[in-house]
């Protein structure tokens, strides 16, 4: 009951998708392809942190010798995160950029967060996704949180998750923020910090 790890099939699926995408585009034309699907955002109007994030991930993907394009995703304003910097990576090498269980993507996102936050700068969430991988992962995690929230509300017993990243914990907190009958808390210290879903009334 307490063993909640997040995904296993997702990354394989994404890697496969990306590999399939490879022969859809001929050599060299992935630039045009990504630009066509990129939302229209005037990159000359970006604030300093956003443009730094975008520049860094583009440079990184280039130095990794990966065929992929990086663009800014419009903020959906969901979960009260209007201030988030959201980057999307698309292209034939997206599967490698995601890595096993999203490890490479997570590393890129972490480094980007470090690069964006200089001393004295505003704290902002940075999200780097590739081919919708993170969106799917977050969706599944959020759904699972709600299912477990329902169980806690019904059975009145605390459920403790396995350790998760701050980002994933936030998704669970957000998913259950207004969920009737339960609340969420984090316990323990990084990197073993875990979320608990707690019934509002023991029973």
């Amino acid at each position: 009951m307490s063993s909640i790890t997040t995904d296993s099939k997702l990354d394989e699926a994404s890697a496969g998708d990306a590999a399939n995408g490879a022969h859809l585009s001929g050599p060299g034309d992935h630039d045009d392809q990504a630009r066509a699907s990129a939302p229209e955002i005037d990159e000359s109007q970006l604030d300093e942190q956003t443009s730094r994030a975008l520049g860094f991930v583009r440079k990184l993907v280039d130095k990794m010798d990966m065929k992929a394009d990086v663009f800014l995703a419009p903020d959906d304003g969901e979960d009260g995160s209007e201030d988030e910097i959201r980057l999307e990576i698309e292209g034939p090498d997206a599967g490698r950029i995601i890595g096993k269980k999203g490890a490479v993507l997570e590393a890129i996102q972490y480094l980007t967060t470090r690069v964006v936050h200089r001393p004295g700068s505003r704290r902002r969430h940075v999200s780097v996704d590739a081919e919708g991988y993170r969106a799917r992962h977050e969706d599944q995690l959020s759904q699972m949180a709600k299912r477990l929230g329902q169980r806690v509300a019904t059975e009145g017993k605390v459920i403790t998750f396995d350790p998760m990243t701050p980002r994933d914990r936030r998704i669970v907190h957000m998913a259950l923020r207004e969920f009737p009958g339960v609340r969420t808390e984090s316990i323990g210290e990084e990197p073993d910090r875990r979320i608990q879903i707690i019934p509002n009334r023991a029973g």
Partner: protein
Amino acid sequence: MALKELIRTIAMELVDHPDQVVVTEIAGENNSLIELRVAKEDIGKVIGKEGRTAQSMRTILTAVSTKLGRRAHLDIVD
């Protein structure tokens, strides 16, 4: 060469003194040892809390070196 450039690019964005970033690569037949040197006051920035920044660089380095059919190890020299 590509691996060295990769680490140099990341490190230069993380530190306060990019001019003091020095990366060397000792390349064997199938493996590379990448040594990263930064200014003393920047070492914490390339290692990070709980070593997470260094870990992230290693994850990316592994992904790229695997693609090249090599094994690479990142050493932060202080």
